């Protein structure tokens, strides 16, 4: 018998995990057409920064900020030295970031050993009847929603956001209008890196801190980006909602592994039958409604 409260919490948990896993990758891909295959390693760096800071006695919120800051710096260096040379070569930028990821994972292993002692999960658990659910993981769904809203505001309501979107739409024209497109790409990449770092920082208390930890976010991140479609924030939100409910349902019924299989299966179906992705469906729908109302 499926417990409804259980299922609801699991949905919130899956939603948060998918959105947070994907958001950094999705922003960089949506804005720059670069798939950052070092995404998992960025998450790992965020988690390492946070864990090392927290273990040194810094309070958790500050430690999270440290994790994010470290990842931003790494992202900045990577963009300035490598990514900017490969804007016109999407497959090569994948291979290059993949190479960076390899070196970072093994580098972390050499410097910090096979694992760090992890920090405990804060806030305890919510108990209801015979069940309980981690309070922290439920709160993360709120954080995920805040991140989405925040990113939406940044990209639609600020001067920077307008310039960044102008760059994506038509880099040459934007440049002619006085937008420093290079700087926009760098800033976007750093924002994406910061969000990946934030994901690592937020999940650091809940998982084992090992060099390869980033790969446990990759399935969700890639599936969300692939199914989301061209409109980044809308796509990520919809993917979080749709895939989150499917993942929660299948995990609840058949275990976490079947949850992942279901994700993959749905992703392949969406790709096959909805070429514009989830956000494409909404965009189509909106256009049709506008046409009918005219």
């Amino acid at each position, binding site marked *: 018998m499926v417990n409804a409260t259980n299922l609801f919490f699991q949905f919130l948990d899956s939603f948060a995990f998918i959105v947070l896993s994907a958001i950094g990758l999705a922003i960089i891909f949506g804005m720059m057409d670069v798939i950052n*295959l070092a995404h998992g390693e960025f998450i790992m760096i965020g988690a390492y920064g946070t864990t090392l800071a927290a273990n040194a006695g810094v309070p958790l919120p500050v430690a999270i900020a440290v994790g994010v800051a470290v990842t931003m710096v790494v992202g900045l260096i990577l963009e300035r030295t490598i990514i900017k040379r490969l804007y016109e070569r999407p*497959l090569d930028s994948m291979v290059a970031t993949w190479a*960076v990821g*390899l070196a970072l*994972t093994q580098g972390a292993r*050499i410097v910090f050993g096979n694992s760090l002692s992890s920090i405990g999960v804060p806030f305890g658990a919510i108990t209801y009847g015979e069940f309980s659910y981690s309070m922290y993981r439920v709160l993360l769904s709120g954080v995920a929603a805040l991140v989405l809203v925040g990113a939406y505001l940044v990209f639609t309501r600020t001067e920077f956001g307008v310039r960044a979107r102008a760059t994506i739409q038509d880099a040459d024209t934007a440049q002619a209008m006085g937008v420093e497109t290079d700087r926009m790409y760098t800033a976007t990449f750093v924002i994406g890196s910061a969000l990946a770092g934030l994901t690592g920082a937020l999940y650091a208390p809940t998982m084992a801190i090992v060099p390869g930890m980033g790969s446990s976010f990759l399935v969700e991140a890639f*599936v969300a980006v692939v199914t989301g479609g061209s409109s980044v924030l809308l796509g990520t939100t919809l993917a979080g909602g749709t895939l989150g409910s499917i993942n929660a349902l299948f995990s609840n019924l058949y275990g976490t592994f079947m949850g*992942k299989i279901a994700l993959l299966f749905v992703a392949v179906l969406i790709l096959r039958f909805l*070429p514009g992705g989830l956000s494409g469906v909404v965009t189509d729908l909106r256009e049709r409604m506008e046409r009918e109302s005219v």
Partner: protein
Amino acid sequence: MSGASNGLLGLFDRLCEPFNGSNTIGNSRAFWVGAVVALAITFAYPLFVSAYQAGNTALFLLYGLLALSLSVVWGYAGVLSFGQVVFFGFAGYTFGIVSINLGSTLGTTLAIPVAVLVATAVAGLLGYFMFYGNVSGVFVAIITLVVTLVMQTFMAQTAGDKWTIGEVPLGGFNGMPGIPNLAVGVEGAALTFSGDTFYWLVLSTLVVVYFGLRVLVNSRFGYAMVAVREDEDRVEMLGYDIRKVKLGVFTLGGALAGFSGVLYASWGNYIDPSVYSLTFATMPVVWVTVGGRESLLGGLVATVAIEWFRQQLSVTGSEWAMVVVGVLLLTIVLALPEGIIPYVHRKAVGVLQQRGFVDPDRPATATEEAAE
């Protein structure tokens, strides 16, 4: 193309002709003489080293087959797949399951085509959904990567009795031991391959596949593949079904990777989920990029060199192998995108032409794409 039509030289040229064309490097007489010498040396190699050493080198060579599978899919058809190890793993596991269950020499013989067929079918199915769903470019790379990750999660959790196929437990993290050596024939009249004979088997397979692929990429289908890589839209306008071309190449790549997986499982008599790990999934991409993805030979040479290097480092207990591999891959992508072997070949041909050793009229240069 056969400039001298008289005597032995003419015969030699005619023999080489089906393997020559603008899609492969090494079409000159000098190359073919070198190839014959290199083949003689590599075939004689086990006579001069221990059976252990020969078996060890056989591992590098069977990885070479995996590299060729990616080279043809990515280098020639432009489809970047991180999932060649999926087909490799599927075939390896299938070979183990079938051969252990049947338990006889004939069973092992039968397990080979079954395993390759399973890998081919998996590649065909995945390819169908991707290419007929008009998935292309980076999305293909992502999906193949996700499939690899999911397979790793799947195989790692197959410990326990419920994951037993016939009499063979899949074994989860502990893997599947007791996979028999490769054998062909029936009980009493069979060839079993181990040590030196296994080396010769792998090398022969590699040579046959390499020459087969040379014929393929220089055929009409090969030109279609390269055209799809260069400009999909134009090829479609010319009346080709690019989905069919991609699916064909991808399925062929799956079959080759699958055969490599069969060799791997019987080489160590063992297979475990690490064949689906990110590290292993990376290696074909590294081999092919470093060696030169638009060159079949480049991938082969780089595979043997890189794997030998990785083994040397891990034998000495160093942890730096993957860092070095990562930096090497990055350097090649940034500084020498065509890869080492095509670059060396281009330079060498240039020097030889300057000195008048090679007739510039013979098609001895790398592909035009590589020269760009």
